[in-house]
């Protein structure tokens, strides 16, 4: 059950994407602009018909290119929130919400519209026309209209991009709360990684119309499938190393360091060049003069090359002897306490459990990968 989407076409927009979304789950489609996110969403809604592929929702086939089967949007029962909300300007908020309820008798329609207005906290604003509502209120009307139809899937196309930061936070919170009441797949299109990480159960990374990886945010950020995914997720700390034998133990040689790795090293042949990734949270700064947690694990001496203070968080770049750059964030007060200054020499540990060996990829091998 749930939503299963597979799309494949060579042009005019090249697509090669596949993803699933279970009932009650929120899947975020992330990727740079032009990566095909919105086109995929429109494919689910039936507003775009790709050359090849299959869309299946709640056990029903909505689109099957092979069988030349495609339900029109009217019969797919999707709830869609458009990027600019697409509210009908000549209808009041309540009438907008009533429009998908035309199968009900009028009294029931108004009653349900009232209920939805209450659910999205717009009581008393039902008589207003869209142009008399704020951006956040419009978004709520759009959400209520999408859900009023009792849809089998909820599609959100960058729903928070047209409102200010404060409103965005509030609407995101409300969506998280509303989710608990609905048991359908929710697909969210966004280019905001933080938003995706905060709201989604699953993230699907898209690039040039191709789905590269689908995973839970936590594992995605710790275990990107390829250097490209890591780059698209704005992950740094992507390095190259060689599998070596040091004193009878498998180690990962990185410059002059021999790193201990918790997982995956034993399966690789000696001499193999690998790309590895380290989540910034697995870089531990040693405190001056006092022992730190995990201090013996892969200790590295490095020079602070850049410090960027962003409010309570300081972003630290460390230059390692052989030229690679380690990046991580620490609390600004911790940076002060440890007297981090540009040019200072510090010690850090690279936690063995955090080191992730990317399967079969070399750094930048696919940096300019353009789909054929």
């Amino acid at each position, binding site marked *: 059950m749930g939503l299963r989407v597979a799309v494949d076409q060579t042009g005019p927009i090249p697509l090669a994407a596949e993803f699933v979304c279970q009932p009650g789950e929120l899947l975020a489609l992330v990727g740079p602009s032009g990566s095909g996110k919105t086109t995929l969403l429109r494919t689910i*809604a*039936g*507003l775009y018909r790709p050359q090849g592929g299959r869309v299946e929702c709640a056990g029903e086939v909505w689109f099957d290119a092979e069988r030349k089967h495609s339900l*029109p*949007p*009217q019969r797919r*029962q*999707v*709830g*869609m929130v*458009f990027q*600019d909300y*697409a*509210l*009908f*300007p*000549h209808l009041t908020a309540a009438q907008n919400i009533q*429009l*998908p309820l*035309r*199968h009900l008798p009028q009294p029931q329609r108004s009653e349900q519209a009232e209920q939805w207005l209450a659910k999205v906290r717009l009581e008393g604003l039902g008589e207003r*026309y*869209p*142009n008399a509502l704020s951006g956040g209120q419009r978004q709520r009307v759009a959400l209520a*209209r*999408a859900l009023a*139809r009792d849809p089998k899937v909820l599609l959100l196309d960058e729903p928070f991009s047209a409102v200010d930061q404060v409103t965005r936070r509030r609407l995101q919170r409300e969506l998280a709360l509303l989710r608990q009441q609905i048991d359908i797949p929710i697909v969210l299109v966004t280019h905001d990684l933080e938003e995706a990480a905060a709201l989604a159960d699953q993230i699907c990374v898209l690039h040039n119309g191709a789905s590269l990886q689908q995973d839970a945010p936590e594992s995605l950020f710790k275990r990107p499938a390829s250097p490209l995914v890591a780059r698209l997720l704005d992950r740094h700390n992507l390095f190259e190393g060689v599998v070596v034998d040091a004193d009878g133990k498998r180690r990962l040689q990185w410059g002059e360091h021999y790193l201990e790795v918790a997982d995956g090293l034993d399966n690789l042949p000696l001499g193999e060049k690998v790309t590895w990734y380290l989540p910034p949270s697995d870089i531990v700064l040693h405190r001056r003069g006092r022992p730190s947690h995990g201090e013996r694990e892969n200790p590295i001496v490095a020079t602070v090359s850049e410090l960027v203070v962003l409010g309570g968080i300081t972003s630290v770049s460390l230059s390692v002897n052989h030229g690679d750059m380690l990046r991580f964030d620490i609390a600004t007060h911790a940076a002060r306490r440890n007297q981090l200054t540009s040019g200072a020499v510090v010690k850090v540990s690279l936690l063995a459990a955090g080191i992730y060996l990317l399967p079969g990829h070399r750094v930048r091998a696919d940096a300019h990968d353009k789909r054929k």
Partner: protein
Amino acid sequence: MDWSALSVSLRLAGFTCLILIPLSLWLGRALAYARFRGKGLCEALVALPLVLPPTVLGFYLLMSFGRDAPVGSFWAELTGRGLNFTFTGILLASLIANLPFAIQPIQRAFEHVPHNLREAAWCSGLSPWQTLLRIELPLVWPGIMSAAALTFAHTLGEFGVILMVGGAIDGETRTLAIAIYDRVQAFDEQGAAQMSALLLLVSFITLGLVYGLAGRRRWVRG
């Protein structure tokens, strides 16, 4: 006062609107939404009566309405009557002369309906017909109104094309505008003045009514 001329004028304007507005809804919508090769050519063709001198348009229509021309002979075969110097003839001429006045405002109005409103309607379960009736038509209503007003008023005032195609047959093709010209030619200045004032009044009331109706919409805001 030439009451029969007023009646011809009103009938002509009324029928022109009645036929042309539904046709323009279809054509204007198609021109607004469709993308096809030669669209610019179509638009130029529609706009042509705007810039063509009425006598030029009238001349070509007169020629093509003749019994040995394709349009005229086809009509004669169908009905047994000619087109030149008949009410049907000037109605047909008026339909063509008014194409830009009817189509252009409607096309512009459809172009201003955001595409995703239609998609939102489809996603709300509305069929294409219901979308047209409940979403698109209310939104393009001001465009339809101004198309109707322009067409009606312009038909009342049309002179050159009607004179070329219809002549000035009493009760059949002599419109108010032509009757005024005739009065002036006959040195009947008082009669011309009365009819001019009437035409002015009718045109003003029509436009006033239509723009007044189109403007009374709560959700419209600049």
